[in-house]
């Protein structure tokens, strides 16, 4: 028990370091760029427009429906993927701090997740602007349900980043492997297609896919729909499971981290 208190105490003690690092990462990302932080909005927006248009033309779909649907799924997906991906480098990239200053290691995976979360918020802003233009009739109070959805997806990604950070510290082959698996899940999860397009036996693909539930608690409220209780229950359980596993892994390996860098 005292170990788990120690985990959060350590984060609290190092909160200014965390804020400072996150602020730095955000500022340096678009350093020397003319449009600066606008890129955080433009990139996901244009990506959805491009993929959405291609699909709409290829499969004769309605652009007005397709682009928002894609965008609503891509937003949380990119957040999870980049948190996991950059999580693999969270400790390795912080070698200079971990090997000479007494800073709590759990700060670094959280740093990655916070930076990506702020980018996700920008992406959601871009989404709403686009959705307001394309389908204003779908706006409603249901959209407030995006807030609990974001909490769930944040905790899930935080856990994921910690798991990736610890495993990759001990087994460096993990990073390319994870990246391949995530690419596979990108196609296995209904993001660039709709679940209804998979009939019969293929429903297994999303029914047993953790990312399907995690994405839906953000994706559906973004589009103005409310996910069912079952989806929330599974997503919350997954988020809690990932977080606890991640925090325990960091707790177990914290003494070994400087030796492995």
């Amino acid at each position, binding site marked *: 028990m005292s170990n788990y208190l120690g985990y959060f105490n350590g984060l609290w003690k190092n909160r200014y370091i965390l804020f*400072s690092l996150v602020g730095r990462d955000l500022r340096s990302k678009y350093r020397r760029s003319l449009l600066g932080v606008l890129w955080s909005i433009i990139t996901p927006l244009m990506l959805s427009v491009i993929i959405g248009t291609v699909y709409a033309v290829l499969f004769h779909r309605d652009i007005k429906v397709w682009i928002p649907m894609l965008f609503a799924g891509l937003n949380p997906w990119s957040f999870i993927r980049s948190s996991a991906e950059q999580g693999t480098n969270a400790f390795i990239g912080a070698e200079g701090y971990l090997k*000479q200053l007494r800073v709590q290691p759990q700060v670094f995976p959280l740093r990655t997740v916070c930076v990506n979360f702020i980018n996700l918020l920008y992406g959601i802003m871009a989404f709403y602007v686009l959705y307001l233009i394309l389908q204003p009739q779908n706006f409603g109070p249901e959209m407030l349900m995006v807030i609990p959805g974001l909490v769930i997806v944040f905790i899930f990604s935080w856990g994921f980043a910690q798991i990736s950070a610890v495993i990759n510290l001990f087994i460096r082959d993990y990073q390319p492997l994870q990246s391949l698996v995530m690419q596979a899940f990108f196609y296995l999860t209904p993001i660039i297609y709709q679940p209804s397009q998979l009939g019969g036996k293929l429903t297994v693909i999303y029914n047993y896919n953790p990312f399907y539930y995690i994405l839906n608690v953000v994706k559906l409220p973004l589009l103005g729909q409310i996910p069912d209780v079952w989806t929330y229950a599974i997503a919350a359980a997954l988020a809690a499971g990932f977080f606890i596993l991640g925090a325990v892994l960091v707790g177990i390996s914290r003494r070994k981290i400087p*030796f492995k860098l």
Partner: protein
Amino acid sequence: MSIIKMEDVDLVFKVWRARKLKDIIVPGSSKFNDYRDAKVHAVDHITLTVNEGERVAVIGHNGAGKSTLLKVMAGVYEPSGGKLTVEGRISNMFELAMGFEPEQTGWDNMYLRGLMLGLKPKEIKAKMREIADFSELGDFLNMPVKYYSSGMYVRLAFSTSTVIMPDILLLDEVFSAGDAGFIKKATKRMKELVNVAKILVMVTHNMNTAKEICNRCIWLDKGKVRMDGTPDEVTKAYLNYVRGGV
């Protein structure tokens, strides 16, 4: 009350040989990398106490375990055995460009390092002017530190690490990069620090530095304390040994 107390402290590094698929398929393909899984006994059952007012120089040849000893004292490496007690606020300065954000300015790095050394944002902000003055970096502080020379890193890191008035200061062979003027100033600063009853432990290869700044000297050899005494006698014995060995 500040103290560093090591009782039978031990640290073993396990060095795993990086095994690659190629080594398995093509045996003997890596002829320059044929050492087995090795253990390095970097700190070998050391017992020593450093009390307030002591300025300790740690000398010895490369690979004797000097830097590791400092990192154990700093709490970076957890000892594999023995008991370590450290009381007091520690400030340390090890590898030079480590722990800096290269894209950030000198000011930003000063702030971040202050936080990492345990200061609150208010405390470090109040000290930034003083750190800047001591470092004499002037306008360079507005520049990203990736453009700094190694001497400038020393100035920034040393100024930040000492202005916060630590109880214990740990330095690892850092002065070689500073210019003569700064070394003089830093030497004075270190003597002042210890005048207010604090601890200094520094690794050095410069026997004159050891004699000038310190009042105790430890000679490390293969992770063990070979000699512990006044800087004069220990550096003399060490130099005799080095000459004899040649």
